[in-house]
Every structure is written in structure tokens, then in C-alpha cells.
């Protein structure tokens, strides 16, 4: 009898701490919502459709921020995805056994460097380099909207490059795990049919396709919320532009820059609303990518459980 009540006590006691974690996630959503209510009710959807951000006159339009966040993350993804996939393939399929552990270690090292250090390096090394690149751009190329504008260095291109560098280790390590989960028989089957190395790898990639998409999307989610490094190199100018050379702004950056100094309540609520939407976007992106990665794990289960006709007969 004593054991029974002890058991209940233990379960309830540890369970209570587990509930705390769930409560925190719920509380994040709730606090962000209540602290942005003024802005949500005052501006509605218009908040995301207008482009003027003027805290002094109380005008808040957040379109440039959501544009900057999506544009910079998408560009970073375009640069990072092939590289991350290449690393994952190299480490899991091609590299000699002795090189695997050091390679994994090095990618983990890249992931461990703090964002602020990337930002510092970005300001003093990457931005001057990008500025030289932009100054050297031929005139005929500058006629293209993608490359228009003065060569400032600070701007979308620097932000996208820095984000790509930061996202690569993250995506590649998950893609590597995904590839490792592909059964060896898939590759052996391909080799047995006379496939070259690449053709066997392609089989493995095809098998793991949902997981690979998930790994790359997880990197995208990371890029969306990245704050310090982007804030330091993107130029912090709220405007919507496709130009890679133009200084722009992101959702995370405007919160980082203005939150501590926001004087009136409407300004604070407008910034919190940006945080709320950033929270929801990353929730959706991360949820989707995890669903992709999980579906790969589940897809194998029925195959393993397939030879069970005896159970049905019985």
C-alpha cells in the first residue's frame, strides 16, 4: 500500500515539473499576444501591408521587416542548401573512415561559435570584402535591379552570406543523421545492379528525400530567427527592395535595436507583435520540418513489420 502511494507521489511530483515546460511554451504565446494587443487592435492587417515605420509620429508598418527576414533567409538557404548537402554526402558516404569524426567535430565547432562573434567578424572582415566586391561590379550589371544601388557593404548580400555560413553546419549535421538512417541495403542494391558511386548515393538521397527537405527547412527556421549577426551587417534601413546591395532590416533586428528604448506603449506593442509573428512563423517552419524528418523514420517501420501474416491468420 505504501509503495502505491509512493508511486503516485513520484509520478505527480515529476509530472508537475514536466507540466512547467508545456506551460512555458503556452505562456510565450499568451504573453506575446497580450503585450501586443494595442498594436493588433489599432492596425489590424494593415500593420503588415504598410511600409512606414515612424515611432515618433506613432505610425507602424512592418512590411519591410517581414520582407527582409524572408528575403535574407531565403537567399541564405539558396547558398547554404547545396553546400550543406554536399558536406552531408561527403561525410556520410564518401570520406574515409578516419576523416569522419574530425569532420563532424569541425562542423559542430562552427555551430558552437556565438552569433555575436559571427557579427563582429561580419562587420570588420566580411562587410569590407563585400564592399570591394560591390565597388568592382561592372556598370552593365548594376542596371539589373538585383545589383542596383550604391556599394555600401552593409546590406542584404552581407547578411545573406553571413546567415549562410551560420546555417550550413546546422543543416548539414541533420542531413548527415538522416543519410545515416538510410538502410545500407538500399546502396548495396544499387551497386549490385551496376550503379556508379553517384547513382548509389542518388538512391540513398531519394530514399531520404523527406528528411533532407526537413533538414534544410530546419536551417531556414534558424535563419529566420537569427538576430545579432544579421543586425550588425544588414544596414538596418526599413525598406522593401530586391537589390542585394541595399541596406534592409529584419524582424529580429528591429526588436533588438528598438525594444530597450521604446518609450510609449504603442511602440512596445508594435515590436511585440513582430515578435509574435516571428514566433508563429518559426513554430510552423520547425513543426513542418520535424514532421518531414519523422515521416522518414516512420516510413521504415511498416517495412520491418511487413512479414507478419501469421499474426493475421491467428
Amino acid at each position: 500500500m505504501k509503495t502505491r502511494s509512493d508511486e503516485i507521489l513520484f509520478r505527480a511530483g515529476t509530472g508537475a515539473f514536466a507540466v512547467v515546460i508545456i506551460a512555458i511554451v503556452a505562456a510565450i504565446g499568451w504573453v506575446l499576444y497580450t503585450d501586443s494587443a494595442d498594436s493588433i487592435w489599432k492596425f489590424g492587417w494593415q500593420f503588415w501591408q504598410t511600409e512606414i515605420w515612424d515611432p515618433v509620429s506613432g505610425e507602424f508598418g512592418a512590411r519591410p521587416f517581414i520582407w527582409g527576414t524572408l528575403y535574407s533567409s531565403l537567399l541564405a538557404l539558396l547558398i547554404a542548401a547545396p553546400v550543406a548537402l554536399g558536406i552531408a554526402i561527403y561525410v556520410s558516404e564518401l570520406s574515409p573512415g578516419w576523416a569522419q569524426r574530425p569532420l563532424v567535430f569541425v562542423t559542430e565547432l562552427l555551430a558552437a561559435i556565438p552569433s555575436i562573434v559571427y557579427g563582429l567578424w561580419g562587420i570588420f572582415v566580411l562587410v569590407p570584402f563585400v564592399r570591394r566586391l560591390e565597388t568592382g561590379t561592372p556598370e552593365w550589371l548594376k542596371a539589373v535591379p538585383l545589383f542596383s544601388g550604391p556599394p555600401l557593404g552593409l546590406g542584404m548580400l552581407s547578411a545573406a552570406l553571413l546567415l549562410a555560413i551560420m546555417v550550413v553546419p546546422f543543416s548539414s549535421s541533420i542531413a548527415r543523421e538522416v543519410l545515416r538512417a538510410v538502410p545500407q541495403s538500399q546502396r548495396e542494391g544499387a551497386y549490385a545492379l551496376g550503379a556508379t558511386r553517384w547513382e548509389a548515393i542518388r538512391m540513398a538521397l531519394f530514399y531520404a528525400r523527406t528528411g533532407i527537405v526537413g533538414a534544410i527547412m530546419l536551417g531556414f527556421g534558424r535563419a529566420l530567427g537569427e538576430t545579432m549577426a544579421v543586425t550588425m551587417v544588414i544596414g538596418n534601413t526599413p525598406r522593401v527592395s530586391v537589390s542585394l546591395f541595399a541596406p534592409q532590416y529584419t524582424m529580429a533586428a528591429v526588436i533588438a535595436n528598438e525594444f530597450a528604448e521604446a518609450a510609449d506603449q504603442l511602440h512596445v506593442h508594435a515590436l511585440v507583435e513582430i515578435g509574435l509573428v516571428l514566433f508563429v512563423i518559426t513554430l510552423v517552419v520547425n513543426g513542418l520540418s520535424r514532421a518531414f524528418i519523422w515521416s522518414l523514420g516512420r516510413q521504415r517501420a511498416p517495412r520491418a513489420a511487413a512479414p507478419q501474416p501469421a499474426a493475421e491468420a491467428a
Partner: protein
Amino acid sequence: MALRDRWRKFLSQLIVVLCGGAVLLALLPLALILFYVVTQGFSSLNTAFFTRMPVPIGETGGGMLNSIVGSLIVIGIGALLAIPVGVISGIYASEYRGTRLAAAVRFAADTLNGVPSIVIGVFAYGVAVLPFQHFSAAAGGFALGVMMLPLVMRTTEELLLLVPQTLREGALALGATRARAVFTVVVPAALPGILTGILLAVARVAGETAPLLFTSLNNAFFTTDPRQPISTLTVQVYTYAISPYPDWHRQAWAGALVLVGMVLSCSLLARLATARMERMQRGG
């Protein structure tokens, strides 16, 4: 036919070269970043950096004593909040693995892990700054604690699952209650691993800046009071980095070197510990 085969072989080799190229491409920025942080950092790093307070603009010298102490305090508060909740909820998730609550906690922890740090900062502002109308070290610690929580919980859970089932059953067979079996047999067996998880969580938040910008804010003076705004290494590096003064830039590089050293030695230590655990697992 022969031409087609030659093309297939060529393509295969091309892919190998491209993948190797991708590895080199990723190593390049790492090498560049480490090179700059080490060379720029070392030339500005001296004992004064660790033992002196910042000096006013225009004077050279000075250090970041208050920021280093501040960082330790804020990280310490975060760890103090995150470790009990993370470890105990990890115990729940591994002991009652099949329950709906365990699945929900796991999901919540994974969700929390993906929330951008700046959003955690806004949340901490709403919970720990706004009600008191005061920026404080405690609020910064709260933000870091929330960030550490999912990492501590998940590593605890995973490592408890690694403890052989027979150990647990042995304790239960001797008449121990579940709580006793967990706290005297299972947890001690997994303790080195749990400590490693905590170390990794500390390494992750030690470099965080965004959630501290408007929770612990910054402070030009030396303080250890958790109710006051406090200077941290990361926020101070940020302040120095975006300033126009070359002397402050030098301080920023020195701060970055200290940060990288801190974070990397934590991860390296954790890595060594896990490697040892893995060896023990294989050997036993």
C-alpha cells in the same frame, strides 16, 4: 554504350569532387573567423582585461571585469532555474515514456528549442521586467534559463534511457519503490551524462546576446545585485563592436576571443565526457 558508361563514371567522380569542395568551402569561413578572433583577440588581451573596469572613451586600457562577473552571474541564475526543472521533467519523460504527458513534454521541449532567442527575450521582458518596471540580472537569467531548459531535459531523458533496464529491475526486485530506484540507482548511473548535458546547455547560452539586450540590459558599473541591470560579456562586445572607437573595437575582439574560448572549452569538455561514456557503454 561505352560513351554512356564513361559519362556515368565521369559524373560520379564530378560529384565526389563537388562534395569535397563543399567541405572546403565550409571550412574556409571557419578558418577565417578563428584566425581573426585569435590574432585580433590575442593582441588586445592582457591581464587588465580580466582585472580592470572599463575606462572612459579617449583613455586607453581598462578591462571588462564587470562584464565577465556579470556574465557568470546571469548564466548562473539561468542554470539554477533550468537544471531542476529540466532534470526532473527529463526523469518523468524517460520513466513514463509511453504516456501522453511525456509525448507532450517532448514536443514542448522541441518547440521551445526552435524559438528564436530574441523572442525568448521579449517573453522574459513581459514576465520578468514589465511587472517590476525594472531591468535586472534576474530577468536576463530567466531568459537564459528558458533557453537551457529543453536541452537539459532532452539530454537527461536520452541518457536515462541508456541506463540498462536490468539495473532498474534489480533495484525494484530488492523492494525499492520507483522513486528510490530512480534516485539511488538510475540517476547516479547516468549522472556524468546529465552533467555533460548541463555543460552543453551552458555552452549554448553563454554566447547569447539577443535575449539579454532588454532584460539584463547593461551597466557601466560593477554590481553583483541580481535586482539591478548588469553588464554581460556578450552585450558589452556588441556595444563595443558597433561603436566608432578603435580602442573599443580592440576590446570587442578580446571579448570575442574570451567568449569563443569559453564556449569551445565547454563543448570540448562535454565531448570528451560523452566519448568516455560511449566507450564505457561498449566496454560494459
